[in-house]
């Protein structure tokens, strides 16, 4: 795997969805290539950051009550 290929599949490597052979090829490339190693560190950090900052917003209680009420009214 070359740097160009690493760029194309980097997200899927992070998702853990590459097949085993490619996951290994990718890892092997990272062990040899400092630039791609840096790239993956950056991607990981951005991913963690985003996950933290876009943490799920909970539904307000009044919505939950409203749903329950409307579902029950709808059922009658």
């Amino acid at each position: 795997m070359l740097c160009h290929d690493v760029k194309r599949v980097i997200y899927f490597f992070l998702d853990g969805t590459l097949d085993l052979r490619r996951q290994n090829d990718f890892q092997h490339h990272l062990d040899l290539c400092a630039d791609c190693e840096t790239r993956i560190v950056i991607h990981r950090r951005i991913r963690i950051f985003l996950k933290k900052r876009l943490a799920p917003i909970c539904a307000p209680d009044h919505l939950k009550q409203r749903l329950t009420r409307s579902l029950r009214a709808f059922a009658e």
Partner: protein
Amino acid sequence: MKSAEAYEHEQGWDFEKAAMPYVDSLYNTAYRMTRNSEDAEDLVQETYLKAYKYYDKFEEGTNFKAWLFKIMKNTFINNYRKKKLTPHKIDFSEIEESYERVIQKNAPDLIKDPETEIFQDMMDEDVKRALDSLPHDYKMVVLLADIEGFSYKEIAEILDCPVGTVMSRLYRGRKMLERTLLEYARKYGYIRGKAEPAKMRSRKDEDKGPKKKEGPAEEEEIQEPDENEEEVLFADDEDLDLEVEGEEEEFNIE
């Protein structure tokens, strides 16, 4: 399937028990889709009522959460998208280039800090703005994958599109989002790379990242797909030619 009589009595309770645990997830995504709490609440309510109405169509043993999300996606398209969605064009090659420029210039800044939160001072509002800057279809896959944790296959089911499309949109959506964040980070001085005109283009297109096997045009232009045009616009999804576990197609290494 239950009888019509039983439906009213039992199904209501069954449904409530099955569906209410997902209200936070649905609301969260609805909020990100509609961008305001009032519309998000209405969307979730409409989704629940529709889901309840068609509950007997739900196939047991399939993913209920994905089914609810699919109903919500369809409801959203019917209610909102038709009204105000104006397709905007994205020059993805420009995004790739500016992303590379920022990464290359700022790599030392981006990795030297041991903190995982690289843009610690970035306002939540900026992050939200970056997310909202994504075209709807790209935003959806990013939300469904990275916030809700759906698999590619589940997302494909929710959005009624091939897995390859999901992967392609994920790739592009994530990249656009990261690019925008990096641009903000640079603009506001969280990272130190010198500012440069955002529209500057490199002369050597050959040096760019993911590239078409053979493209008719130099620039790959993505247009936010219209509901009915989706497949046509994304016919080049195989460009990424990625293989996911369990699928057999070859990944093309040029």
